[in-house]
């Protein structure tokens, strides 16, 4: 396309031959040799113009010209390296921050599931579970009989996929000798085929595998890479999951890490029906696994709509089946009970991620958008300032015969170079920033920028390029040939209109800076509050880890844990050890209504009756350092044969047993099956997370209830808590060599995970606020320095006629103080709006927090002053004679 086969010489040759042929013909018509030649030439017209046009029509010519322009622009940028570096860095920072936040937003909120036709996939959800059932999520989890009924439906749904984690954390696996942990899910036979996920290696599961509960496993591409170094020989090898051998039969497509947001599933196995592999790693309930237990709604179910069937059609068709299946094994609905209603939820994106990350990410996106705006306006101001000083250069070029078009091309080429360099640097910066962001946010799914991110960045860059190209347009057009020759350096540059634009931009930047600093301040104060929230216990010296041993029977379970406690307590350096079913500070809690003295307690209208309960071992409160207000805590003597005893917190006692001594009262489950006698009241302390409000709590003793499953072990040790882990691991493995320590960490870190998102949010907001201040400072400094340098001659004159240094400094400062005052006045109302939008993300800080506002305003003023003082004093130290001589 670009290459024309014909050279210019060839074209010239043709013209020469034409002239000769024409002359020959004219001679034949009777003209003399001389006359014929002249006539031929005249008839042809301008040969040079024809040749020039031939050259210009060639696409190569365009290319050559562009290359020449680029080279010229590069040289001209190199002449002012300070300008070029500042502009490129500013652009890279602003753009890079945007790209990084956008790629996280894209990965978490916008990107679709990496499956076939995600728009035909739905999550099957219920309006509410039937009475008398337990759920993992009120709406999003269903029972096995419901899944089973759905899967038997043909017509509306072309596939039904169920999946359920093997644990609410990680599950013990072993490949080779060493036990380790990984994230695993049990899935139905149609899981891979129904979702349309490819298995580049091996195979997925079939419905036969589901029926047989076949001992097979598929690894995620990520896990295969991370753990097995992409070794194809793992196919056919055995992976022990909770001690149960599974044969690896496939590797999933790259990028598919399950359908849950933010998490990453390492492996999948077909739905199993053995105690060691119960759903969510729970112990059996009345000896039944999730498959046999219709009262436990624990499965997530997805479906693919059959071609041509709409969501509402499918829902209408399946509603009756769903409702009858919901009561399988539960008896008929109670009088007045609201029957569960089937609902199809969108499965295009990851479920739940919007609620979890949506708002903070959108606010961050808005913040980085402001940063980008500041960065872009900065570069525009730099460009305008630079081109204004080049007015004489432009005028000279025009006078020497450069076309106005050539001048514009030069300016566009310069901005193109800036944008390209800035963009490349921004991309590198964004890649690193995204990785750090992912680590901080504990988002394990892939955040690698994809095509959408690239397009976003390119669009932003194109916008920047256009803006930078257009900004100097006016300057270039204003200049004309005579100007350069007529005017001096001092007067040709004092264009009042231009500096007005600059002033408006600086003012707006200062306003945006106030907004960003207030937002950053509010969030950082939130973070401080969260970090300093008293937990109601002494977490220093506490270390926690999970164990999930094989428990053949409940009495053996009691013995196993009693022995484990005994051996761990005997270790040197250990002060005390206890057990808990729900690990504190991990977001998990067991919530239900409880009977007090045989009936559900009376509460004021609308008040909650919910009690959070946990199952714990002896010595629990002493280990945590929670004060016991009255009575006692569980002891080793509270066994299954002793009277069943319980402990409640202050909040429980105040709300349900006011004005009496709670000790000795009986409390129990809402169905009345289990009761216990209160023997102790403890001080309120944090259970689920750091930012929770006190809520009534009750504790059961694990050794007195008929469920025994995996537990978390809490140890109080002397010295560095994590140092105890290797010897603790040895003790645990005396019971079972396959037993890993699940998610071992200090209790402090465990609690911190519940505020990690807020901390991340605050840190990022703080970073962006800082970045904004930095950019505004450089921008302000640049603009002021430039304006002062423009007035060097004027200052020289003023000083020559007697102005004192202080007066000159004040003259310059006055100007920027005015801009700052206007900027702050504009910024505060805007910041109030932003503060209101942030309300839900704040903890212990009001959106109108005076300290944050004061600090933001003080920060902006300091920056503005600092950026003005330097050029101002420099201006004042000008030697009047020298200044005048710059003419």
């Amino acid at each position, binding site marked *: 396309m670009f290459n024309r086969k*014909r050279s210019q010489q060839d*074209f010239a*040759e*043709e013209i020469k031959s*034409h002239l000769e*042929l*024409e002359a020959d*013909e004219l001679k034949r018509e009777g003209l003399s040799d001389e006359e014929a030649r002249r006539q031929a030439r005249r008839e042809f017209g301008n040969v040079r113009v024809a040749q020039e046009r031939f050259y210009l029509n060639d696409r190569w010519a365009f290319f050559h010209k562009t290359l020449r322009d680029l080279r010229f622009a590069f040289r001209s940028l190199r002449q002012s390296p300070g300008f070029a570096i500042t502009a490129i860095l500013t652009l890279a920072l602003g753009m890079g921050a945007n790209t990084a936040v956008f790629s996280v937003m894209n990965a978490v909120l916008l990107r679709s599931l990496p499956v076939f036709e995600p728009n035909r996939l739905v999550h099957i959800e219920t309006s509410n579970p039937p009475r008398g059932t337990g759920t993992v999520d009120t709406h999003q989890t269903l029972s096995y009989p419901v899944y089973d009924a759905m899967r038997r439906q043909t017509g509306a749904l072309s596939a039904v996929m169920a999946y359920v984690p093997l644990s609410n954390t990680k599950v013990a696996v072993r490949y080779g000798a060493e036990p380790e942990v990984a994230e695993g899910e049990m899935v139905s036979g149609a899981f891979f085929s129904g979702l349309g996920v490819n298995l580049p290696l091996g195979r997925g599961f079939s419905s036969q595998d589901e029926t047989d509960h076949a001992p097979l496993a598929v690894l995620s591409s990520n896990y295969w890479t991370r753990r097995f170094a992409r070794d194809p020989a793992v196919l056919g090898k055995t992976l022990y999951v909770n001690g149960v051998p599974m044969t690896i039969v496939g590797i999933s497509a790259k990028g598919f890490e399950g359908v849950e947001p933010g998490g990453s599933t390492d492996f999948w196995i077909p739905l199993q029906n053995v105690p060691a592999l119960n759903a969510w790693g729970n112990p059996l309930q009345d000896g039944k696994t999730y498959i046999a237990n219709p009262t436990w709604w624990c499965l997530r179910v997805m479906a693919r709509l059959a071609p041509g069937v709409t969501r509402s059609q499918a829902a209408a068709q399946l509603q009756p089946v769903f409702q009858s299946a919901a009561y399988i094994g539960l008896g008929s609905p109670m009088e007045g009970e609201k029957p569960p209603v089937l609902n199809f939820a969108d499965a295009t994106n990851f479920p739940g991620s919007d609620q979890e990350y949506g708002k903070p990410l959108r606010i961050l996106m808005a913040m980085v958008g402001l940063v980008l705006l500041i960065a872009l306006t900065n570069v525009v101001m730099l460009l305008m300032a630079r081109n204004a000083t080049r007015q004489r250069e432009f005028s000279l070029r025009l006078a020497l015969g450069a076309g106005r078009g050539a001048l514009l091309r030069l300016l566009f080429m310069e901005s193109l170079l800036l944008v390209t360099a800035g963009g490349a640097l921004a991309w590198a910066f964004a890649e690193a920033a995204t990785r750090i962001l992912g680590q901080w946010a504990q988002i394990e799914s892939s955040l690698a920028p994809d095509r959408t991110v690239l397009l976003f960045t390119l669009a932003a860059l194109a916008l920047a390029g256009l803006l930078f190209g257009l900004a100097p347009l006016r300057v270039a057009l204003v200049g004309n040939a005579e100007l350069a020759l007529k005017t001096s350096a001092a007067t040709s540059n004092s264009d009042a209109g231009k500096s007005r634009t600059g002033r408006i931009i600086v003012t707006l930047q200062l306003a945006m800076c106030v907004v960003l600093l207030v937002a950053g301040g509010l969030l950082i104060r939130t973070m401080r509050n969260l970090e300093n929230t008293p937990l109601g216990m002494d977490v220093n010296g506490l270390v926690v880890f999970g164990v999930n041993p094989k428990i053949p029977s409940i009495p053996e379970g009691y013995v196993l844990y009693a022995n484990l406690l005994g051996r761990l307590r005997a270790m040197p350096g250990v002060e005390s050890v206890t057990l808990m079913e729900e690990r504190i500070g991990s977001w998990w809690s067991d919530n239900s209504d409880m009977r007090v003295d045989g009936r559900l307690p009376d509460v004021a209208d609308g008040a909650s009756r919910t009690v959070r309960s946990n199952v714990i071992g002896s010595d629990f409160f002493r280990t945590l350092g929670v004060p016991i207000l009255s009575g006692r805590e569980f002891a080793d003597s509270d066994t299954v044969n002793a009277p069943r005893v319980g402990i409640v917190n202050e909040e429980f006692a105040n709300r349900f047993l006011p004005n009496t001594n709670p000790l000795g009262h009986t409390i129990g489950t809402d169905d009345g099956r289990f009761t216990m006698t209160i023997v102790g009241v403890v001080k309120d302390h944090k259970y689920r997370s750091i930012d929770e409000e006190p809520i009534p709590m009750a504790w059961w003793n694990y050794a007195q209830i008929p469920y025994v499953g995996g537990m978390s072990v809490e140890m109080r040790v002397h010295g560095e808590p994590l140092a105890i882990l290797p010897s603790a691991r040895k003790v645990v493995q005396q019971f079972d060599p396959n037993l890993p320590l699940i998610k071992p960490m200090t209790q402090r870190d465990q609690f911190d995970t519940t505020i990690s998102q807020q901390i991340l949010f605050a840190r990022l907001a703080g970073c962006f606020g800082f970045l904004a201040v930095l950019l505004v400072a450089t921008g302000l400094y640049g603009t002021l320095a430039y304006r002062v340098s423009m007035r060097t001659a004027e200052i020289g004159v003023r000083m020559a006629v007697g102005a004192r240094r202080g007066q000159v400094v004040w003259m310059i400062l006055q100007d920027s103080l005015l801009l700052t005052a206007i900027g702050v006045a504009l910024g505060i109302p805007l910041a109030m709006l932003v503060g209101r939008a942030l309300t839900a993300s704040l903890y212990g800080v009001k959106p109108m927090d005076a300290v944050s506002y004061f600090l933001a305003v003080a920060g902006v003023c300091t920056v503005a002053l600092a950026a003005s003082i330097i050029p101002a004093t420099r201006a004042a130290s000008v030697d009047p004679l020298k200044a005048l001589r710059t003419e």
Partner: protein
Amino acid sequence: MPTQENNDDRIALLQGTLDLLILKTLALGPCHGQGVARLIQRQSEEVFFVDHGSLYLALQRLEDKDWISAQWGVSENNRKARFYTLTPKGRKQLVEKTSEWRRLARAMGLILDNSFSPTREEA
């Protein structure tokens, strides 16, 4: 000295018509640029004036479009010349452009020949 402005009866070529004229001329057989210019001028009974510079650029344009092909050869009076030939693609273009031109000419003729008056309107 005679100048171009003296040739009052010559008409500058309409945009786009030059391409068609070149194609038509080459349909008669291979020819070099100077011959094409002469032929057009002669066949139009000296009405058209062909700007030679534009002609060569047009030839190049058509060659780039693959409607004609070119080869250096020797003219009847033993001069080196670049000969142009119509390609099959160019022949098809010629047919298309010709009928297009005819339609245009007919429409123009209809309007120009019609001695309509604004008061007598036909439905």
